[in-house]
């Protein structure tokens, strides 16, 4: 008799979600689905607001990656004004985005994901969290927390506050870097490098004992999408879109981000508030693609800085043409932290960052503006249509976690098929299924345009919809 197992909510991710596992009559996994159960409504209630207010409003979508929304929104505003922003403003925005990538990736690795593969899948759930990590290895936990703090400090030095700085505006930014701020960042570079190297070493060691996980945690062919510079170097804020396939072939390149609708369509499923985008040319669902650290490393040829480029080469050895295991998102994240620290170090040498020429001024010159930026979790689009007065008539936000929706579904199904045999599912197995989602570090607050810590509820539902068994933890 067919059955349905529900993991609700999924823990150690940003936002609220649940997983359904469907069992066939033989008790084998037939399919699995990842549902996002939040609805935020930003696209609707922003209608009627002026584009100049949008960076401030949309950064409130998320407390983890406010900077990503801030920057994409400011860029969409630049496009509406049809201005080229002052070079210093662009460099400062890039510096803040590097800080954002460092802090978010450090949070994902140390606080959310590492407890699983460093402490172990079978460690009791009460200890399998960041506090367990603090108890087991206080030095490592401290270093991880401080690495995140380093990223946040860059944001604070520039924007005046760690979370929700209203600093980037259509046309540029509101303030420059100060010499004192530059020194604050510079002093913390050596520690940031050291922590990242330790984390990379730890992950590579963990990988030796997690070969099976690397094979079944979302290991499947798919396309990869991200921003890349014209010469194929890693990008995080500028550049144009590139799609590659699972063998590493470039199938579409240097696409203007404003043309994203020509290449991406969104499908809507009744079971989730999260839309499922796919690559148009291949249709639904074969046009499945992944974004984020794994994709950005798969599509680029070099990182633009030496130490991270050496790590990229080692990373690329993990696959043939492209690295297809979502478990390796963790490694990709660490390589990106390293690249970001190197880029920050390089940026600090640029005297432009102290410039006072920071903000271009113009009215409404284009009735539509698209802003794209690489958020830690992947490519983020803000697409605004305005009236002549600059008030928004239509808002479309395509968020990184949305791009990965189809891939997350497939990952959950792959892990469930491997581990689940019949109705009796031990807790560590459920945790592995959840980890499949954690690999993507999804931000559901963003993708449904919520927050909080959640206990976990698992329900076994019979074919008639009756609850056969319910386990509540946390």
């Amino acid at each position: 008799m067919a059955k349905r197992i529900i993991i609700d909510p999924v823990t150690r991710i940003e936002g609220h979600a649940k997983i359904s596992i469907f069992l066939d009559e033989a008790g084998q996994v037939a399919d699995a689905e990842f549902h996002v159960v939040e609805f935020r409504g930003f696209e609707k209630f922003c209608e009627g607001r002026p584009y100049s207010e949008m960076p401030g409003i949309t950064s409130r979508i998320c407390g983890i990656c406010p900077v990503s929304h801030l920057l994409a929104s400011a860029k969409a505003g630049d496009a509406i004004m049809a201005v080229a922003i002052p070079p210093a403003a662009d460099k400062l925005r890039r510096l803040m985005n590097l800080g954002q990538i460092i802090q978010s990736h450090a949070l994902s690795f140390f606080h959310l994901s590492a407890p699983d593969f460093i402490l172990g899948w079978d460690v009791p759930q009460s200890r399998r969290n960041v506090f367990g990590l603090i108890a087991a290895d206080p030095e490592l936990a401290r270093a991880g927390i401080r690495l995140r703090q380093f990223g946040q400090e860059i944001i604070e030095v520039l924007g005046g506050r760690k979370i929700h700085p209203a600093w980037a505006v259509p046309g540029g930014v509101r303030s420059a870097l100060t010499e004192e701020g530059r020194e604050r960042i510079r002093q913390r570079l050596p520690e940031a490098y050291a922590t990242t190297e330790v984390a990379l070493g730890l992950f590579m060691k963990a990988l030796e004992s997690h070969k099976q996980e690397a094979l079944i945690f979302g290991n499947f062919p798919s396309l990869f999408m991200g921003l890349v510079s014209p010469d194929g170097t890693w990008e995080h804020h500028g550049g144009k879109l590139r799609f590659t396939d699972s063998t590493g072939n470039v199938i579409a390149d240097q696409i203007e981000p404003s043309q994203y609708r020509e290449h991406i369509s969104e499908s809507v499923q009744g079971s989730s508030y999260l839309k499922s985008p796919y690559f148009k040319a291949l249709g639904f669902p074969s046009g499945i693609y992944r974004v984020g650290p794994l994709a950005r490393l798969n599509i680029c040829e070099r990182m633009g800085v030496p130490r991270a480029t050496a790590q990229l080469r080692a990373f690329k050895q993990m696959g043939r043409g492209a690295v297809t295991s979502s478990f390796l998102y963790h490694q990709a994240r660490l390589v990106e932290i390293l690249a970001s620290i190197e880029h920050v170090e390089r940026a600090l040498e640029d005297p432009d960052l102290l410039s006072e020429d920071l903000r271009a001024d113009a009215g409404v010159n284009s009735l539509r503006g698209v802003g794209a930026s690489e958020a830690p979790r992947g490519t983020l689009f803000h697409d605004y249509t305005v009236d002549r007065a600059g008030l928004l008539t239509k808002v479309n936000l395509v968020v990184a976690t949305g791009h990965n929706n189809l891939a997350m579904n497939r990952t959950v199904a792959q892990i469930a098929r491997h581990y689940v045999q019949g109705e009796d599912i031990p807790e560590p197995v459920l945790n592995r299924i959840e980890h499949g989602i954690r690999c993507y570090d999804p931000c559901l607050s963003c993708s449904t345009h919520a927050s909080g810590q959640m206990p976990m509820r698992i329900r076994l539902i019979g074919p008639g919809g009756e609850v056969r068994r319910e386990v509540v933890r946390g």
Partner: protein
Amino acid sequence: MAAKTLTIDGKEVSAQEGATILDAASDAGIKIPTLCHLEGVYDIGSCRLCLVEVTGVAKLLPSCTTHVSEGMDVHTDSERLRKYRRMTLELLFAERNHVCSVCVSNNNCELQALAWQHGMDHVRYDYCFPKWGMDATHPLFGMDHNRCILCTRCVRVCWHIEGAGTKNVAGRGAKSTIIDDLHQPWGESDTCTSCGKCVIACPTGALFSRGSTVGEMVRDRSTLEFIVNAREKKQWIV
């Protein structure tokens, strides 16, 4: 003019006949919270934040429009007054859509500052969430009716300092709205001189310079005082 002697919060105060309690308190260094009051234009006593207790009078009186009288005993701070002032502020917040965190006047807003001063950590009334729009048709300024508290400072400066008479009030009660000329888009107004006095006068983020982002609207009201002083003291007449 004869001087009147009165007591404010136990302090002996003298004031000119015809002065308001607010003037007398202000001269004596006693601060009474205000919102619709603006130096340079006449008072209308609409916001009810400057309410005071006068011994022998059962009702609370607005200090900005109540004139002093001989032997008056005024109290500007009491449990009862604090209760009413907080209630008034909560009602103002509940009536329209005030979202400080994304407002152009965040940290520079008189309504927000008063809410802080009066310990308004939450609003006990249900929010109305009315559907008010924005007027962004003026080339220099914008008007967001969501953030308007109908203090009519903009109307008063427009009529009595600038003399343009562009700003008016239409409708009744909570559905009242600030309009331009005969309720047309601000950008199409024939009378607006684009002087910006209304924007300087606004206590919240309702009126703002176009393109302003979170917390960027800082208003310098000394310009208004300068004009009024110059006119009243005839500084520009040679």
